[in-house]
């Protein structure tokens, strides 16, 4: 892996951009924007994968690039936009936690992610992808935070997808991709998962006349 040193800063920058996109997601208050930012983040992920393909000599990753572009950049955002367009009257995000506070929390999560990476994981000496790893943990945590703090079903889906982006980022860089069959399977699962969630979102909208998941609270105790 002698050609790594040149690539690492680039990958780091891309990762930082993904983190930035996540921060924008936390901030933004309109659903459509949220979906667009997600698509952009996925695009960054695709570029990361592309660079990793060539610099890390893991050529099977090229398939991942196509998959990510096809699914995460195009297909899933389209599905989400479709749902937003047809189903939602209020196009706001409807947060439990205000955007400004959310940004503070998200920053805290980033610090937590770095703390985890530095003091708990304690990677091998000479590991170059520490930044990417920390970023992916941060993405996972922020995505999770989005799910916790936003009421709409769609925002929960986006949060989940952000978490997945985080996992993919670390898989791309740290391990230069999982074995081929696993990668394919995971992508397939993610796609099917989103489709199924889409189906349920439609059903929920039909039955509850709302996409607000905080209203799904009849099953208690």
């Amino acid at each position, binding site marked *: 892996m002698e050609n790594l040193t040149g690539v690492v800063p680039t990958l780091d920058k891309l990762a930082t951009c993904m983190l930035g996109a996540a921060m924008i997601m936390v901030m933004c208050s309109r659903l459509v924007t949220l979906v667009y930012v997600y698509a952009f983040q996925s695009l960054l992920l695709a570029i990361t994968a592309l660079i990793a393909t060539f610099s890390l000599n893991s050529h099977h990753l090229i398939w991942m690039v196509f998959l990510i572009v096809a699914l995460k950049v195009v297909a899933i955002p389209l599905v989400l936009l479709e749902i937003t367009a047809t189903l939602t009257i209020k196009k706001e995000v409807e947060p439990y936690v205000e955007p400004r506070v959310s940004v503070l929390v998200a920053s805290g999560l980033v610090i937590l992610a770095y703390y*985890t990476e530095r003091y*708990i*994981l*304690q*990677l*091998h000496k000479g590991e170059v992808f520490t930044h990417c790893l920390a970023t*992916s943990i941060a993405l*996972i945590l922020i995505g*999770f935070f989005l*799910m916790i703090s936003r009421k709409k*079903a769609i925002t*929960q889906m986006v949060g*989940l997808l952000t*978490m*997945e982006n*985080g*996992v993919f980022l*670390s*898989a791309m860089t*740290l*391990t230069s991709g*999982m*074995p081929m*069959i*696993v990668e394919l*399977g*995971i992508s*397939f*699962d993610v796609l*099917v*998962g989103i489709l*199924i*969630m889409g189906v*349920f979102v439609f*059903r*929920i909208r039909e*039955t*509850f006349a709302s996409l607000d*998941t905080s209203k*799904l*609270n*009849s*099953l208690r*105790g």
Partner: protein
Amino acid sequence: MLKLILALPLITALLCLFCLFMKKGRVAEFLNLLGVSSCFIISILLLSDITKGGPKYDFEGLIYVDTLGGFFLCLVLLISLVVSIYSISYMRQAVEKAEIDRHLSRYYLLLNLFMFTMTMVATTGNLGVLWISIEATTLVSAFLVGYYNEKTALEAAWKYLILCTVGITFALFGTVLLYYASLHIPFELRNTLNWFEITRFADRLDPSLTKVAFIFILVGYGTKAGFAPMHTWLPDAHSQAPTPVSALLSGVLLKCSIYGILRFYIIASKCLGMAYLNNLLLIFGIFSLVIATFFILIQKDIKRLLAYSSLENVGIIATGIGFGGLLGVYGALFHILNHALVKSLMFFVGGNLSLKYHTKNIEDIKGAVGIMPITGAGLLLGSFALTGLPPFNMFMSEIAILAAGFSSGNILASCIFLVALVVIFAGILRHTMVMAFNPPPQGLERGEVGNWAILACFLLLVPIVLLGICIPGFLDNVLNQSVSIIIGEKVSWAKEGFTSMK
């Protein structure tokens, strides 16, 4: 045989799809029964082969079944078989009562896909594929949970889908971290996620990485397995799904995730030692047990009651593994089997009752022994077994786990365990005995809901009683080998100071 066991459910599913288009529900029923029963027979043959001749594998280890996997495989197919039998009665009645307007074939299609994914979990040798199949179980079963398409069913399905997917995303991250750790052992491993290969070199993994990976895995698969406090989806999903599906969810789906955790546990324990992992499992186990205790006391819905009892039993299993040692792990594995049998029986009985009384509300169900003698007897025996009374099977596993707790020195945990069991005993019998006895409400006709349902109950009752009296040599052998796999060393009863069998 390996390929066949995976292919059969898929073929059956395809045929069911065909039936769906042809609108031939009864044919799908038949095909499903045929497929599952042949799968079950094959799995038993496979397991006996494995116990004699060692693990079997195919596709470069994508499929790899050792005794532990074989045990879970048989468990999945056994419960699937009785569930299929029970489904015939239950779904026919449900269709008659217009509780569902859809075609039966759709149900059997989903059921077969669900079984396929669970079979995958038990047979794969690859940690990535393991993740994929566990995620796939969520996706398929979400449809089954939301099958009734009512408000509550949808709510339950959504919570199930979201919470479990989140959990499983953590598990994916854990898998990635472990894979990363394994990459740092060069030479022997050629970029593999096969657990049987990683296990061999697990002692050379980086400890801190493995630890964090295991935490992510535990939280991730733990969500799916229903460890408190990540269990919150469990009562909702179990109570809203059609009864046969509840039995599958409770009986085997939770166990599949535990299987996932066990695979990582085996790897991590070689690298980190048992103590830390056991403590983690113990904390989750005892916490689940305690939380379940409180909730069982106040339940009003029979299926929710059973769901919380599943939480309790998952807690018991985790505690058993956490206590460690031959008795603890053996007890936990045995308990996995016992709980699957008993809980399926209880769900079946509960389903029969709610079909008859048109309610799931415990207070409205009374006098079951008089109205439905066989179901009533099932309710009685099932609840005695479930609450751990001898001579039923769950007493045996619970006492083994408790003994392991005392002998491993976890006195406090064992005492909490014991107290929780007593309170749960009171909490469950308080409900079920009133349901079984007391004068029945007016105007209910005497009679059972269907012959297939009774057959399913009988099929479960036989092993419940028999396993409380004796553990057959074959099962003992399987469990012993599985314990050896989990603990990582050869175990035998004689070494523990127990006289050997027979």
